[in-house]
C-alpha cells in the first residue's frame, strides 16, 4: 500500500489524498476493517423499516433525533434588552445556514409586520421620492446571490486576554450564510434618480427602535440589495421579514432589517448604532468608526469546542472561510499551533462574500495537538495572526468571564483548538 503523504506536522495529509482510491486507503491506515464490526453483529432489518412511516408535514421539521441542533439564546424570556440567537456551526456542514438556524440579533424583539401594509420609501436627495409595496417590488427584475451576514461583534470574545471556554457557537455563532433574492438597490435608485449632492443613504427599519444606519452611496450602487427571499422562502422574522437591506460583506447591523425607509443625504446620520455601538475602541483611547467591512476570517468547525474526538485515526478537518472583500483564495491549516502548515481544499463554487467550506484529511495519532486555520482572500488580504491583531487592536486588561460579553468588535484573527489525548477540544491561544 502506498503511504499517504503527510504534509504538515501531527498528521495533516495532502488535501487531495482521497481523490484517487481514497476509501480503501482510509480503511487501511486507520487499521479499521469493515469486516471486524459487521460480522460480529449482523445487520438487522429494523422495525421502522417494516411499517408505514411518518406523515408528510406541510412545513417540514428536522428529524426528532436532531433536537439538539438549535440556536443558543442569550435572553430567552425577552427581558428589556437585546436578544441574540447563535448559529451552531459545529453541528452544520456545507455553506448554507438553514433559515431557522440563521443567527439573529434583535434589539427590541422581531416586529410582527403585516406584509400587505408594509411600505418602502426612498426619498431625500432624489429626483422624485417613491414608495413601494411588497407586491410592486416583487414585479421588479430580481437577482439571487450567496452572501454571509456577520455581526460586527462576532468573535469579539477573542479580544479577551485569556481564552474563554465556550463552544464555537458561543465564540463564532453570530455569522451565517444564505442565498438572498431581491431587487438591486441600484435598480430602484435609477427610478428615483439621484441628486449629485447625495453621498450617503440612511436606511431605517420598521422595528420599535426604528434602527437606522448610514451607508455610503457607492456601496448602495455597487451590490446592495433589497432582499425579499432567504434560501428560497420569504425572509425569516428574525432576519428582517418582509424585506431587509443586504450589503454583501458589510457589518451585519448595517444590513437593516424590516427596511421601510431609505433617505439620501449629504452626511452620515451618526445614528446610535454607528456612533456608539458598532465602533471599536483602540488601545490609545481613540476608536474606529464606520468599519463597514467584515474582513477575511476562517475557523475550523470540525473538530471544535463542543465536539469530541472518539479515538485516534482518520478525521476530516473542515471549517468556514469568508471575506467581505471578495472570494477566498487560500486556506492553510496547522495541527501544531501554527509552526507547520498544509493547504486545505476549497469546496467549489468559491463565491465572493460568501462562506467557503475548506477541508483537509487528518490522521490523529492520539496525542495533544493544536489546530488552527488561516485564510487569504483574492485581494491578497491575509487573516492576521493573533499577535498581529492584538498589536493593532489590543486585548482586554482583564480576562473576560461572561460568554455573552462583547469586549470588542471586528475580530478576524485565528482561532486555536487544542485537542487533548482524551479527544476533548478546548479553546486556547497559540
Amino acid at each position: 500500500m502506498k503511504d499517504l503523504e503527510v504534509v504538515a506536522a501531527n498528521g495533516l495529509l495532502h488535501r487531495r489524498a482521497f481523490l484517487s482510491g481514497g476509501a480503501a486507503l482510509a480503511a487501511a491506515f486507520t487499521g479499521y476493517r469493515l469486516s471486524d464490526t459487521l460480522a460480529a453483529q449482523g445487520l438487522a432489518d429494523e422495525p421502522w423499516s417494516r411499517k408505514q412511516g411518518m406523515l408528510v408535514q406541510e412545513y417540514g421539521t428536522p428529524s426528532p433525533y436532531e433536537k439538539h441542533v438549535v440556536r443558543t439564546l442569550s435572553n430567552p424570556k425577552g427581558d428589556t434588552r437585546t436578544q441574540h440567537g447563535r448559529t451552531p456551526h459545529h453541528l452544520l456542514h456545507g455553506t448554507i445556514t438553514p433559515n431557522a438556524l440563521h443567527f439573529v440579533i434583535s434589539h427590541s424583539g422581531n416586529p410582527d409586520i403585516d406584509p400587505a401594509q408594509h411600505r418602502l420609501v426612498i426619498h431625500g436627495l432624489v429626483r422624485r421620492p417613491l414608495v413601494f409595496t411588497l407586491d410592486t417590488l416583487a414585479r421588479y427584475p430580481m437577482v439571487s446571490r450567496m452572501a454571509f451576514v456577520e455581526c460586527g461583534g462576532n468573535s469579539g470574545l477573542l479580544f479577551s486576554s485569556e481564552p474563554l471556554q465556550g463552544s464555537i457557537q458561543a465564540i463564532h455563532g453570530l455569522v451565517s450564510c444564505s442565498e438572498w433574492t431581491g431587487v438591486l438597490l441600484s435598480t430602484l435608485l435609477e427610478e428615483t434618480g439621484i441628486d449629485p449632492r447625495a453621498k450617503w443613504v440612511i436606511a431605517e427599519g420598521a422595528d420599535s427602535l426604528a434602527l437606522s444606519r448610514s451607508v455610503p452611496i457607492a456601496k448602495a450602487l455597487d451590490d446592495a440589495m433589497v432582499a425579499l427571499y432567504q434560501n428560497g422562502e420569504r425572509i425569516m422574522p428574525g432576519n428582517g421579514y418582509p424585506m431587509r437591506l443586504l450589503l454583501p460583506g458589510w457589518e451585519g447591523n448595517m444590513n437593516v432589517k424590516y427596511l421601510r425607509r431609505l433617505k439620501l443625504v449629504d452626511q452620515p446620520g451618526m445614528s446610535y448604532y454607528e456612533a456608539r455601538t458598532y465602533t471599536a475602541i483602540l488601545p490609545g483611547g481613540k476608536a474606529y468608526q464606520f468599519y463597514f467591512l467584515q474582513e477575511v476570517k476562517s475557523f475550523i468547525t470540525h473538530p471544535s469546542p463542543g465536539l469530541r474526538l472518539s479515538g485516534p485515526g482518520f478525521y476530516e478537518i473542515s471549517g468556514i472561510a469568508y471575506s467581505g472583500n471578495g472570494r477566498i483564495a487560500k486556506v492553510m491549516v496547522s495541527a501544531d499551533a501554527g509552526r507547520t502548515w498544509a493547504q486545505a481544499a476549497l469546496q467549489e463554487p468559491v463565491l465572493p462574500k460568501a462562506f467557503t467550506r475548506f477541508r483537509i484529511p487528518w490522521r490523529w495519532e492520539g496525542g495533544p495537538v493544536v489546530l488552527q486555520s488561516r485564510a487569504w482572500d483574492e485581494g491578497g488580504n491575509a487573516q492576521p495572526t493573533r499577535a498581529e491583531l492584538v498589536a493593532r487592536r489590543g486585548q482586554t486588561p482583564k480576562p473576560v468571564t461572561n460568554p455573552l460579553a462583547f469586549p470588542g468588535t471586528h475580530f478576524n484573527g485565528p482561532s486555536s483548538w487544542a485537542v487533548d489525548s482524551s479527544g476533548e477540544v478546548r479553546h486556547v491561544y497559540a
Partner: protein
Amino acid sequence: MSTRETVQRRDDARVRRCLVALVVLAAGSVMLAQGQVGTPAAPNLGKPVSEAEIAAWDISILPDGTGLPPGSGTPEQGAKIFVAKCALCHGPEAKGGVAAALIGGRPLTDGIDTPKTIANFWPYATTLFDFTRRAMPWQAPRTLTDDEVYALTAYILSLNKIIGPADAMNAQTLPKVRMPNRDGFIPRFPERIP
C-alpha cells in the same frame, strides 16, 4: 487593476447611469407618463410620494442639525419627565438600572472594553435627540413630544456637565453642543468614506 479600482469603476458607471436617469427625468413628464424613465430594467412601479406625506416617518436628525423639529426644553423640565418616563429602567438621576447609566464614564484609555457612555464616547449631541425620539422609552417609543425630547436631551447633557443647568436645547443650540469625545474617531478604511 486592484479590486478597489474595479469596484470604483463599477460605482462610477452606476452613478453615471443614475445621473443619466435624472437628466432624462428632468426632460419632462411626457416620458414619465410613457414609462420610459431610466433603463429598460426600471419598471416604474414605484408610486410618487411627496416629502409632506413622508414627514411622519422622516425622523432622521443629522449632526449639523438638519431635521431637528421646532420646540425647546430645559434641564429642569427634563428632570421631571425623566422621573416619570425613564428612571424605571435607567435609574434615579440616570445612574443606571436594568438599562445603562446615562451619566459618567471612565476614560477610554482604561481598556478596549471600557463601557461607552454619552460623556466619554458619543461624538454628537444630535444622536441623543435622535435616539431618544425614535427609540425611547423602550416599551413605548415615539410617544414623546418634541419639547419633551429637547428637555430630556438637555437634562442628560447637563447631568454630564456638557451644558449648563439653565441651557435650553432647541434646533439652534443642540447642534452647537460640542461633545467631549468629538475628535476621538478614526475611520477604518478612509478611502470608503464619501
